[in-house]
């Protein structure tokens, strides 16, 4: 690296903590900031400092928020009784964009993965179970990813809560994608689509 100025070197080094940013991109970003984006850089550093100092997790759903309760949990118009369990905040953004779901969320920030040594504790499952025991939830939608670890996480939660009275545990449907041609759908998805087929009388 440059070895010109310790401050510049330090900045190049520290910017590499971002995912997908190596030494070369870090150097490009730093030079850009110093050469022609000093104002933007100041705003960035201030925003970064503020966010890192004050953003924590919402006490209820574990989404990132600077308040004790996030704006979704605070919103009285949203259905308190339905909770959707997702793996990451990115999933919340995706679901929110669809404008379909009007309940609340619970974010696991990961999935059960023994190889990475991630267990129920890191996922805040105890907090989720406490929430269920408070009794205000009537339906829990398990929207973990359709990967091995995601499925295992859903099974784990289902197993722990299956005997709770007045709680519906549901899972997102799996099947042929919208606008998809059957010919090009993979076998696993077709199998799931067949076993999860719906009665037209009930849906139309």
């Amino acid at each position: 690296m440059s070895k010109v100025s310790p401050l510049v070197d330090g900045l190049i080094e520290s910017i590499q903590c971002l995912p997908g940013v190596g030494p070369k991109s870090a150097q490009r970003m730093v030079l850009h900031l110093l050469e022609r984006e000093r104002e933007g850089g100041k705003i960035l550093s201030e925003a970064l400092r503020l966010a890192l100092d004050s953003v924590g997790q919402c006490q209820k759903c574990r989404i990132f928020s600077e308040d004790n309760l996030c704006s979704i949990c605070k919103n009285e118009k949203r259905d308190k009784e339905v909770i959707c369990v997702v793996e990451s905040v990115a999933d919340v953004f995706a679901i929110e964009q669809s404008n379909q779901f009007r309940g609340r969320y619970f974010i696991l920030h990961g999935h059960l993965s023994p190889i990475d040594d991630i267990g129920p504790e890191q996922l805040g499952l105890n907090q989720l179970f406490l929430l269920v025991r408070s009794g205000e939830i009537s339906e829990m939608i398990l929207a973990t990813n359709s990967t091995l670890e995601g499925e295992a996480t859903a099974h784990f939660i289902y197993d722990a809560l299956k005997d709770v009275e007045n709680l519906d545990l549901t899972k997102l449907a799996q099947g042929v994608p919208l606008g998809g041609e059957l010919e090009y759908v993979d076998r696993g998805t077709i199998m799931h689509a067949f076993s999860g087929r719906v009665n037209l009388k009930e849906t139309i």
Partner: protein
Amino acid sequence: MVNRATLEEAFILHTRSFKETSLIVDAFTQNYGKMSFVAKGAKRPKSGLRVIQTPTTVFSISFTGKGDLKTLTQCEIIEHFRISSKVALSCIIYLNELLTKTLEKEDPHPEIFNQFKMLCHNLSKDQNQESIELQLRSFELILLQELGYGIDLEKEALSGIPINVNSSYSFDPALGFTKIGEAEVELAAGGFLGKDILSFAKGDLANTGSRSASKKIMRRALDFHLGNKTLNIRKYLIESGAQ
């Protein structure tokens, strides 16, 4: 070291995100053993590699590349096992972790691969706890055997005297079984009854004695082989009985 292969059968042991839409995939291939791949753009909706995250599936993959991390070029589903029970799912997760931690990179073990495939196939059907446990134990035995750490369940270590139904034995993972006395003497910690060992050897785990003995024997043997690595799944799924 292999630089390219086409239409190689593989199981996916583990995936993790890499950059915006890519994945790093640890796979167990039929003819080349455990390997790591980068699946570029595998998270894009239209990517042909997208199916790589389908759980419990045998894939046919093609790859190129020198060095440790190859590039996945093609991936198709050969067979998808529909696993719906929690026990079976835990087994797969356990097996993935076990294979990840016991296999060396690019050390081919086609026999383990074929046994694993058969086991997955059975897990997608069989829901009986006892037979699942028996299959798991048999797989663990074969795994150790193939890795060069086989256990003789029918003979004593060193002397080679056949295991006697009426005796009890101690088990040393590095050595094997050694007689410690006649059966029905109070089993000291870590001792095993000859009849339990023999019924495990015959693949009969119908009674709880042989079942728990088989579990303890395999656990000790695997722990010995794993050295300082631990199987984290044991922490999380203690009661499932799957391990």
